[in-house]
């Protein structure tokens, strides 16, 4: 609890004028969707949202100052992820970085492309666009290395394998996949989407040997709208955007200075407390998992099965419950959770990740993803353990009761 900034755990939801007057405790369990801004990131950004400004590509003192801020941020990102500063290409976020990796490599060197069946849409859709195919995962949600082995051809141009999955949190065998690719398809590049992993795993170890890495700022306590593609020298890569030639001709467009500065600060802060947070949040997540599985005995924890998972992610499939209805009830009592990824209209779609793990639509219909992060507290877990089983009971018609909102703590 000590790491949460003051006020974070006690802010009441802004009262809605027509929803009665019970103020509700806010329990944010959707860190895999986005994370609250870290104070270090906010502090680093504030000058660039205030008196400081500048186009880093200019040739005067204002521009130079902005350039310096971007360069120092580049150093910071490189330091955290374990690459050279010159390998960092700042983008508008993880999706752009993933698109650039897949489409940029394919444009530079057309040929077969592979990705795992559980990639985020930001990888899956560009891979489909360039005519690529997917490699199966096992029921734990781990890439099937035998299937990869069978799919590899010497003319492969790119393999994309995420470091850890965004829905179920299962960590992928990136190092083993890299080894296979180097042996069987030495000309191929390997891309890893480390958007979810960046806050939890030491990227130096995760990305050792890969050619391309996508990271996103807002998943690690930085601002939204900024990310980076780490591209090792010599990786064949074409830009997605043409223009002024910023970022070594790879990403045209004036730099988002405040965002870049905030992202670097967030990554540094996340790395500094990574080990402490891993054990702290991991323990919270485990208590939440044990409590929910005890209270909802037929709930099934999705995937994993001995494979490593991110410390913050808990994914359950709850029989006899529909995700949308459960999320509605949880929202009413101030628990923010998710079923999986949300589409543009806010509607839920059947999860390709669960399908790839062999989980049928009936079981998957009760999917619940609870993702903890750097602001999560014991009180969050207590609140979730109080209201989630009650909401499940209500939806199953077991009892005619509703999860009661907690008393709003006095500020």
């Amino acid at each position, binding site marked *: 609890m000590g790491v949460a900034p003051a006020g974070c755990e006690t802010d009441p939801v802004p009262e*809605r*004028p*027509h*929803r*009665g007057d019970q103020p509700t405790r806010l329990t944010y369990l959707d860190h895999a969707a986005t994370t609250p801004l870290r104070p270090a990131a906010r502090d680093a950004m504030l000058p660039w949202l205030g008196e400081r400004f500048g186009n880093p590509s200019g040739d005067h003192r204002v521009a130079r100052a902005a350039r310096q801020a971007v360069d120092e941020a580049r150093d910071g990102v490189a330091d955290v992820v374990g690459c050279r500063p010159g390998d960092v290409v700042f983008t508008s976020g993880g999706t752009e970085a993933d698109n650039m990796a897949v489409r940029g490599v394919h444009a530079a060197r057309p040929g077969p492309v592979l990705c795992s069946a559980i990639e985020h849409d930001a990888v899956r859709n560009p891979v489909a666009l360039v005519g690529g195919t997917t490699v199966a995962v096992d029921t734990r949600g781990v890439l099937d290395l035998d299937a990869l082995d069978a799919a590899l051809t010497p003319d492969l141009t790119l393999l994309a394998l995420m470091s850890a999955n965004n829905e179920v949190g299962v960590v992928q065998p990136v190092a083993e996949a890299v080894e296979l690719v180097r042996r069987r398809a030495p000309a191929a590049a390997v891309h890893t989407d480390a958007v979810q992993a960046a806050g939890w795993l030491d990227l130096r170890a995760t990305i050792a040997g890969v050619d391309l890495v996508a990271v996103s700022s807002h998943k690690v306590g930085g601002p939204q709208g900024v990310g980076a593609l780490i591209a090792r020298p010599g990786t064949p890569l074409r830009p997605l955007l043409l223009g002024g030639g910023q970022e070594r001709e790879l990403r045209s467009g004036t730099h988002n200075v405040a965002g870049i500065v905030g992202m670097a600060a967030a990554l540094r802060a996340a790395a500094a407390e990574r080990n402490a947070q891993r054990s702290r949040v991991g323990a919270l997540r485990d208590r939440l998992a044990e409590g929910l599985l005890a209270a909802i005995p037929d709930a099934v924890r999705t995937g994993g099965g001995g494979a490593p998972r991110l410390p913050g992610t808990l994914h359950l499939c709850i029989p006899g419950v*529909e995700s*949308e*209805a459960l999320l*509605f*009830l949880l*929202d*009413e009592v101030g628990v923010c959770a998710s079923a999986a990824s949300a589409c*543009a*209209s*806010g*509607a*839920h*779609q059947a999860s390709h990740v669960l399908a790839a793990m062999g989980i049928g639509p009936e079981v998957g219909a009760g999917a619940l993803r609870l993702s903890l992060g750097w602001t999560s507290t014991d009180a969050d877990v207590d609140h979730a353990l109080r209201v989630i089983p009650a909401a499940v009971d*209500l*939806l199953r*018609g077991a009892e005619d009761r*509703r999860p009661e909102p907690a008393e709003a703590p006095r500020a």
Partner: protein
Amino acid sequence: MRVLVAMSGGVDSSVAAARLIAAGHDVVGVTMKLWGGESDTGCCSVSDVDDARRVAQQLGIAHHTWTFSEDFDRHVVDPYVDAHRRGATPNPCIECNRHLKFDRLLRRAQAVGYATVATGHHARIVTHADGTRRLARGADAAKDQSYVLYVLRQAELSRTLLPVGELTKAEVRAEAETLGLRTARKPDSQDVCFITSGRGRRGFLGGRIDFRAGRVVDEAGRDVGSVDAVELVTVGQRRGLGLPGGGAPRYVVDVDAPSATVRVGPERDLLCEQVALERVVWSADRPPGASRAPIAAQCSAHGSPRSARIEPVGNDRALVRFERWERRVARGQSVVLYEGDEVIGGGVAA
């Protein structure tokens, strides 16, 4: 009272939500995501979800999007395609009300603690002295939607609010203007939400049915024309049959899909004295008693009511005898039965 408003992103449900809030209810907005394919306006394009959400923001209520696209495919789209395949007339809006808005949505709402659901339909719900509820025509005769809501019975009627049923469309728009709702001038949705004006019914069905060319024969069985897609021919149709010009107008009087044969004849062959209904729904949950006065039978969404007498057959069938000869009702078309302005039931032409 806690009320869940089905917000389509149109002006009617926007005003419905605003009126319920003004009346002091505890309101939440839900937009159903039903159709994942192309759409002009309909109910469920992303832009309509956006409109619903923006109105909810303006009104200060929570808004959720619920996906019922699989139910929609199963209960609305598939039967729509199948009806064409069989040469019958589909009623997608009625099936959507029957299975989605007033079943799936009502059940989901109940599950999350909202016993009452409101929609922006132009119809009213009236309560009789004995406590029985009935659906009644909306105040705006031109916009009345009671026809597509005949599938509601007591269980649904008792849990439904139709807050704009007392208003004319002009009054709804004026109220939206006064409240500054962004949907105030949004055009009314047209026709079937999953059929686009660009591709039309033919384009939609073409990907789902192998159209069959059909013979067009007269009452004596002689070939008089041909059609390239017997699945697109409707009883009562006059054009597009490849008939030679001149002579008295001839109409499609029968479509026999299995043999891909369209029969044409003079208008009198289209006339009939009665129509048998199946899948009949009685608003009061039971058939009306015998020896009733004539009722009004409406045989299409905007058709004129026809005077008729009804003979219930069992619980879910009925015979509707018209007081005078009337145009035949196409197989699959819904016939809605009114006593005055009030719906007493309805069914599908067998």
